[in-house]
């Protein structure tokens, strides 16, 4: 019954964003904006990957290097740039939350959909897939909170 397990994991990963959007955020964030946010998220991630590959040469994850860790943290700030770009056009709190939701859903789509589809259907049982799905839910909260934070920060000067 591994298919049921896979279905459970997928439901746990993708239904919450759908519920949130459909019953809460749909009035603040139209579909076009959500799709645009998804594209911007993908772009930002790619940009970060390129920066990482350029400025963080060490591939060894066990090695701790202060300057590299700083660089990594700094590169992560590229997310702010992406959000900043999106907030230029529209800025209400609901929109910001919608964009955050879009980002987390996009992340799940890219990072979790295929692994779950490929592995959770395999005979081998692993708690990891369930953890991945739970992580997706936490990531929704994190992304929305982050988006709201950036929104607040940009809004302040007005």
């Amino acid at each position, binding site marked *: 019954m591994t298919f049921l397990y896979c279905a459970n994991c997928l439901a746990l990963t*993708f239904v919450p964003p759908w519920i949130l959007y459909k019953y809460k955020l749909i009035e603040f964030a139209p579909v076009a904006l959500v799709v645009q946010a998804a594209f911007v998220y993908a772009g930002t991630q790619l940009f970060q990957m390129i920066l990482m590959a350029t400025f963080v040469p060490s591939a060894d994850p066990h090695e701790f290097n202060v300057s590299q860790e700083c660089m990594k943290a700094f590169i992560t700030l590229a997310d702010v740039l992406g959000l900043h770009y999106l907030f230029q056009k529209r800025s209400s709190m609901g929109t910001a939350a919608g964009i955050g939701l879009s980002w987390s859903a996009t992340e799940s789509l*890219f990072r979790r959909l295929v692994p779950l589809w490929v*592995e959770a259907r395999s005979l081998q049982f692993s708690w990891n897939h369930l953890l991945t799905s739970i992580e997706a839910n936490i990531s929704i909260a994190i992304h929305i909170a982050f988006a709201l934070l950036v929104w607040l920060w940009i809004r302040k000067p007005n």
Partner: protein
Amino acid sequence: MYGRVGRSSLLSTQCFLGLLVSLPLVLASNVHDVPTLEAYRMFEYDDKGQQLGSRKSAVNMLAVPASSSSEFGRRVVVADLQDLSAVYVEKLFVERSAGGLLAILPKDIDIENPEQRSKWLEVETALAKMRVNAPVYFAFESNQTQNLKRMLEANPGEVQLSATGLVSPTKASNVQGANFQGWLPGRGGGEESSSSRPIIAIVAHYDTLGVAPELAVGLDSNGSGMIALLQLAKLFSKLYSSKRQQGMYDIVFVLTGAGKSEFTGTKYWLEHTDSRLLDRIEFVLCLDSIGYGDKVYIHTSKQKSKDSVPAVAKLWDVLKSTAEDMNIPLEIVRKKVNLSDFSWEHEQFSRKDILAVTVSRHSTHRADIRSSILDRKLDVQALKKNILFVGNVMAKVVYDLKKPLDVFEGSLSLNSAFLEAWAQELAGTPRMMQYLGPDAIKTIEKAGQLLKEYTAEMTRQMFSLGQEKVFYIGTSKAQISVYSVRPLSFDLLMSLLVFTYLVALLVGIQGRVEAQKTIMSLFQGNNKSLTEFRFIGVPESDHGSDV
């Protein structure tokens, strides 16, 4: 504004592509390794129309320990040697209708513990004669099997065995075999057909038998006979290479195939060899299982009353005196030929009225180890001694020696390295006639080539095996993956929890009353709610939220 959005979305498309390309990398690091163990499938054959052996090969079932009292149907029973016995195996498949058997054998089962050995032989013999309507696999103890046992102990009912990439067994009709015959001329040389010297024939079969074809390396039966034959050919080719040392006899070495199938190869050789050659044979020494033991048994089908016949008396005398000189206990075992069941190779010769004996370490033909997968080792020292015995017997006849046996010394002494190298090679090549793989054929051809090198004339005979016993060939060596799985109840419970969580989320967003309505509308006819959405005018909402 429009232009800007368009440009950015074009850029984003490239980003998506980039992410898609990088996706497999992320995946590759996440794939879980499933422990896999190597297992050997039991054979499957039809004996005169009777279906025997393991009639199924597919494994995709939950595993269950042999000690368990739970249901065995559609389960693979994982059993250790101590769990098994002939009675248990019978019960397993007949009464408890087990879905399959994975027997885990100790790594060093053959000589370490004679008790274990006899126990396994009992099981193997019982299995080989049974019709098992389930897959049967054997594996040797390893880290993987221990891991499997640990998993079974910790979570019984949550371990699934699955063999992938199995080739479904098909009938192996028209199996070909080969005999190799090497002829070494005695004093006078000449052509084989024109020679009139008497002949001594040394015969050994090279094939093996075992319940799992891929494990049937038969090092003692009859790897030892095969090695001995090659070694003797080597020694006598050296002796006969100088004219002064050539004896009054021709020597014929015959390496036969299909020995485990009623000596079909030997029979074919007898039927297809020039009768003038056969007529000149003074006696035949068949070598079978001489890789162990201190005692030598001479098996014959000659009655005691024939002992006064000069040729027979002479052979007995030579055998006995050589054994005495070498301090080897020797016993002559007499058994009538049963035409429907040949148990020793010499019986094929006896049927043609050629004086023949089999030299073996076994006191009886009912030694099950001769057709067991446990026959995987031999004692080079014992083999050496037995080869020396046969060599001395031959030398005594060929040179008509009376006493001192100092032929095989100095440059003619036995070479342990040669024996060991061959033992090692044969230990790695299962040689069951119906399942001969390319490696095994290569090894056998190599032996044939060696025979060609050592003798003046080598002939290779091809023959077909009979159709009475037809084996099925498929995957003999399988990879069985050990999955840890959860029962259906676990998945159902999880579904319930996920559903509860989602409902709670909805309630949290909409409040209880609204959420109840939403859920009702979802369950009361999807179509209606869908058309409703369409009229409201947000058709993309379903798709849009997923992105």
